[in-house]
């Protein structure tokens, strides 16, 4: 198991190298001069060239990539030969010259918003999705099952921007039940935090709840027909034990994989939801960094979010081995 983890970690690092290299190459291939974007409209050719040199865009791409990598481990200094050098300590993800801030700082500012958004929605959809799915499975073929599946189909069909806008229109604008969303940290003002987050949570949860209801229902239905569930009944166990200990335990295990990956994906930023609700999270940051062709910021966000997903993948695999004794990690 330890050897397995070490091997996975090495693989993870290799994968991240490849990923950042790919992002680097992709964005140098894109049209547009990054140096040109660093100063305003009235920009002389000299200023552009000076900026190009300060940013290191005059170096060959391989050198740029090397500097980026070494910055991760030992830190780096931008515009070292100018009177005001910018020191970026390890792990240095780069420096955004459009925003005049370190990439790591920008990400660190945006990450908590995305974190709370993801966690809240995750808890919401896991609880409702799984419990409704189980409820449907235990009433298989009867009206509760059909009702839940119908709701699931509706939830599944609604795009998140639509739900988001409808919710804002009615709940915030028309009925004024909630103030217009404006993000604050839960530690500063928990009440306003909840007022802001409840709608985005619902938007993100609806789609996933629909998906998890179906997944749970089908999983539980499948395991209820398993031979070992029949054995459990034949032993004379109470129906409750049969369902909870034997059917659900096995039926819900595959959900760990789905849930882990979905959460990780969301931690990388919910672009549409964050934009609709004006939440300054990673998704919103990623969108504006792309619009501004902010290469350092794009690379930094890519690196961070893909790390989250790869780590989540590993955690899910390890967790699975703990839950299911048949899984041997080697």
């Amino acid at each position, binding site marked *: 198991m330890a050897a397995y983890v070490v091997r996975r970690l090495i693989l993870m690092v290799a994968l991240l190298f490849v990923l950042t290299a790919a992002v680097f190459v992709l964005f140098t291939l894109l049209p547009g001069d990054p140096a040109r974007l660093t100063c305003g409209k009235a920009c002389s050719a000299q200023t552009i060239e000076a900026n190009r040199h300060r940013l290191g865009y005059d170096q060959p791409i391989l050198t740029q990539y090397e500097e980026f990598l070494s910055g991760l481990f030992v830190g780096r200094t931008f515009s070292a030969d100018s009177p005001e050098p910018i020191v970026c300590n390890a792990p240095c993800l780069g420096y955004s010259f459009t925003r005049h801030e370190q990439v790591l700082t920008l990400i660190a500012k945006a990450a908590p918003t995305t974190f709370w958004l993801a966690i809240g929605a995750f808890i919401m959809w896991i609880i409702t999705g799984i419990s409704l799915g189980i409820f449907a499975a235990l009433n298989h073929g009867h009206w509760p099952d059909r009702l839940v599946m119908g709701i699931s189909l509706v939830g599944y069909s609604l795009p998140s921007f639509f739900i988001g806008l409808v919710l804002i229109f009615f709940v915030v604008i028309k009925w004024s039940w909630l103030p217009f969303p404006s993000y604050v940290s839960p530690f500063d003002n928990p009440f306003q935090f909840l007022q802001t987050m409840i709608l985005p949570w619902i938007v993100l949860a609806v789609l996933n709840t629909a998906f998890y209801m179906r997944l749970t229902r089908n999983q539980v239905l499948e395991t209820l027909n398993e031979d070992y569930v*029949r054995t459990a009944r034949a032993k004379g166990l109470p129906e409750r034990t049969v369902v909870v200990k034997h059917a659900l335990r096995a039926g819900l*295990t595959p959900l760990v994989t789905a849930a882990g990956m979905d959460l990780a994906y969301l931690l990388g930023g919910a672009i549409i939801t964050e934009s609709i609700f004006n939440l300054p999270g990673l998704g919103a940051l990623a969108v504006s960094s792309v619009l501004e062709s902010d290469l350092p910021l794009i690379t930094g966000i890519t690196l961070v979010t893909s790390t989250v997903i790869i780590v989540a993948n590993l955690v899910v695999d390890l967790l699975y081995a703990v839950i299911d*004794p048949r899984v041997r990690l080697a």
Partner: protein
Amino acid sequence: MTTPGRPAEHPFLEIKDLGVAFPTEDGLVRAVEGVSLSIERGRTLAIVGESGSGKSVTAQAIMGLIDRKIATVTGEIWLDGQELIGLPADDLQALRGAQVAMIFQDPMSSLHPFYRVGDQITEAINAHRSIRAKAARAMALEMLRRVGIPAPERRIDDYPHQLSGGMRQRVMIAMALINAPKMLIADEPTTALDVTVQAQILELITSLQDEFGITVIMITHDLGIVADVADDVAVMYGGRIVEVAPTGVLYAQPEMPYTLGLLSSIPRMDRELSVRLEPIPGNPPSPIHLPLGCVFQPRCMYSDRVAGGACLSVRPDLLATAAGHLVRCHLPAEERRQISQGVLNVLAGGS
């Protein structure tokens, strides 16, 4: 329907006119119809039939494992003087595992993959009595030893996937017998196992049966193993019993053409090599659209010998032809015996 005062001398298990039907979108599936059986204490009854003949459904009805929400069960099942049909769910649950235990065809899928075998056995103990964890474990260990698991103190903490197929079935048997039930239903217990292991498992069941004095119902499609273990045999076809006889009688003087067909289709060592195995032509009937007359009629090569085409229009009754020998067939007994002897002679390689 139930009479409180039943005679003291009754069979250990008595099934009367059992019917199990599942409503489906395509129509009513009559999985079992009019099944009547009785078994004396300590004996072994084999229920033989092909897939879909209703043998497993009959077993599940005895266990009370038929989901009443999706099926209707009619008739009577008397176990040791107690009527099981209509018994509240709680009482049936208390009965399962304690009075009647069951083992299944595929021991791999019948054991829960996430729990250690020892825990699965102690769970069965705890379902029926309060006992300390340590004592339960000791009981499980002792039972694993008795079913012939080598080094049980090590195996008790294994997961099912760490055991071989034969070991798993031994674990299933240990789990079934841990509460000293009066009856064991073995549903194709050897079908998923290697031939050498099959013999060991059958031997184990028979020896434990003698030791514990258990009544056994052995469900199988394999007439080859019936001869070794069963006292009586009930042959099922199309959801009903078509022939019941003591094992020796069934092999020597089968009377129902279907039984005859089954016997002709098993390879035997004492048979001439020149004699070909004779499969029964055709397929089992659909349980939704059963033939109007004898359910075996479409595949029976002797049905035209019955006058007036009764086989096509009239359901035959299960009638006694000799003591303990019941046959469901329109053919006159004389003619049945003639046909049967003729076929058996050919099989034996005689002329």
